[in-house]
């Protein structure tokens, strides 16, 4: 039976210990990033830093450059100006794989889940665990091993599912989001980028996902959340970055600002920030 042998990088070692180092240590930082599409300048001189244990909320109106920035940081887009840096030095990312090799994973807005596959199959897609005996040669997977590890990863984030063996299509929207986050956390040992994690969810489910974001960061990962859902994400964020017309309009700790400040920065009243307080 012919099988393409595209063994993907093994990812993190078998025991995925989520807390790898002291909180606050930088994971990846952007320095003066700029990106243009033809004559359209999507990003200009953007700098930010993701640190372990911290949630960075990235706000901005449509077209402010949030998506482009995320794509730069997860390797989908290569910036024209500036550079990315890890504690080990400057780096260039050319693909999602490159970012994943640094331990940075992405939860896409569409979640990138295969609805017909089970939770565990989704969590291990592309990184399946093979049986240890002779069946390994036939490409037989070890569902039990994968189920154990998926269960462990889910419970670490306090996510409860009826079973990891049910198809993703049978889950609620919040549960799907949780599975996508858990998968990202499982294969990350540094940071997670989340694109609009609450956009498709109702009130209750959004709250649950916010708790999940918090607990992910508390386990020692750096988290960046792109969102339009300002009040909710502001509650879980440690740092807030607001983009406007491709540049950083505001970058402050969340404890120092209000929802109003964020909105003002988004629409261009950032010169008043502080005056209202």
């Amino acid at each position, binding site marked *: 039976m012919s099988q393409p042998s595209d063994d993907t990088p093994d990812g993190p070692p078998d025991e995925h210990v989520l807390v790898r180092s002291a909180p606050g240590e930088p994971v990846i930082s952007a320095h003066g990033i700029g990106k243009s599409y033809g004559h359209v300048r999507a990003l200009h001189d953007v700098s930010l830093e993701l640190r372990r244990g911290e949630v960075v909320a990235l706000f901005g109106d449509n077209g402010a450059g949030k998506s482009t920035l995320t794509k730069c940081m997860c390797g989908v887009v290569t910036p024209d100006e500036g550079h990315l840096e890890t504690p080990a030095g400057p780096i260039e990312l050319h693909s999602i794989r490159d970012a994943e090799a640094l331990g940075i994973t992405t939860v896409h807005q569409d979640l990138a*889940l295969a609805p*017909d596959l089970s939770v565990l199959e989704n969590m291990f897609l592309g990184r399946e665990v093979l049986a240890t005996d002779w069946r390994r040669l036939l490409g037989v997977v070890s569902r039990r091993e994968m189920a154990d590890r998926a*269960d462990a990863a889910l419970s670490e984030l306090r996510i409860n599912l009826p079973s990891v063996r049910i198809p993703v299509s049978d889950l*609620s929207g919040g549960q799907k989001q949780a599975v996508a986050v858990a998968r990202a956390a499982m294969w990350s040992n540094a940071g997670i980028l989340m694109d609009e994690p609450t956009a498709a969810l109702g009130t209750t*489910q959004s709250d649950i996902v916010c708790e999940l974001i918090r607990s992910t960061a508390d386990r020692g990962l750096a988290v960046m959340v792109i969102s339009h859902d300002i009040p909710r994400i502001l509650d879980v964020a440690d740092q807030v970055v607001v983009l406007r017309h491709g540049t950083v309009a505001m970058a402050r700790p969340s404890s120092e600002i209000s929802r109003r400040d964020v909105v003002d920065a988004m629409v261009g009243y950032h010169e008043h920030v502080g005056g209202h307080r």
Partner: protein
Amino acid sequence: MSSADSTTAAEQPTTSSSGSAPPALPARLRALGSTTALWIFVVDILLVLLFGALSENGSFLTASSFRVLGLDAAEALILAVGISLLLGAGEIDLSLGAGLLLSSVFGGKVIIALAGSGTAVAAIIGLFACLGTGAAIGLVNGLVVTKLRVTSLIATLATMGIATGIANIATSGTDLSDIPASLQDDFGIRNLIGIPLPAFIALALWLVTWILFRSTRFGLRLLALGSNRGAAERSGLKVDAHLIAAFMLVGAMAGLAGFIDLTRFATTNLAGHQNDGLAAITAAVIGGTSLYGGRVSLGGVLAGTLLAVILQDGLVVIGLSAFYQLIAVGVVLIAAVNLDQRRTPGGLRLRLRR
């Protein structure tokens, strides 16, 4: 849809699962195939009983009658198993019948050329010629789909014509003769412990494919490709390599069916395989395999293939005239699928979601 859901991850009353806990009931049903498959099996059994009651002296319910069913089902089952691989990956192959035909032509020519060096040798090399021809057509399909970016529907429609054309050119439009008749007795119509050998082979292939989808990385990845191509890509799967492999595998299965056809009839059948591909797709889809990828029911493939064969043979056995058979087949098809739709609200829901 999701915003209407009231249960949430944290509110879910069930306890967190652990790997050792038995899977939930729906998961067990999925393991069997699908509820659709079960219902088509029920229809199969009901039809067998009905035809048994209506046939003279219950001749439809005899061992020899089941042997006939098995022999008739063998080629169809192989093609249906093959198409399930591609349907699972979200692709389709209309060239199966043409692949079967061209394989039987090349395999037949090899057998004729080697007939002097012993039937067994000729047959074995002929088998590999059939498998190779089928796989080559699959390779072309796979390359056209992945590299030239032609949708599989169009690509395989095109290769269907090309393969049929080559088969006709290679034979000057006449079926091969001179294939040793002993091949028929030794293989094509041979019984092994009372079961036709081709049926054995088809069942073995069915079982292997079932395991492939159930337990292997390749099978899971094919389903992932069919379920969400973009997600599979972002998970780092080599999409093109997997699709080409799947097309080749399916092509080789058509080649196997071609070899069985060749040994069953000791000739080719140039004008007789036009509907084979569509019949295979129909059998798979009736049994619950999705036309849009991601969902495959091997149980349903078996049940759907048997449904077609039972109808085809049973209606002749009970002596229904050929024109009424057409109507009866149509009625039973609608009834069988409708029964499944009523019984399993899930089936309807899934279709709406699609």
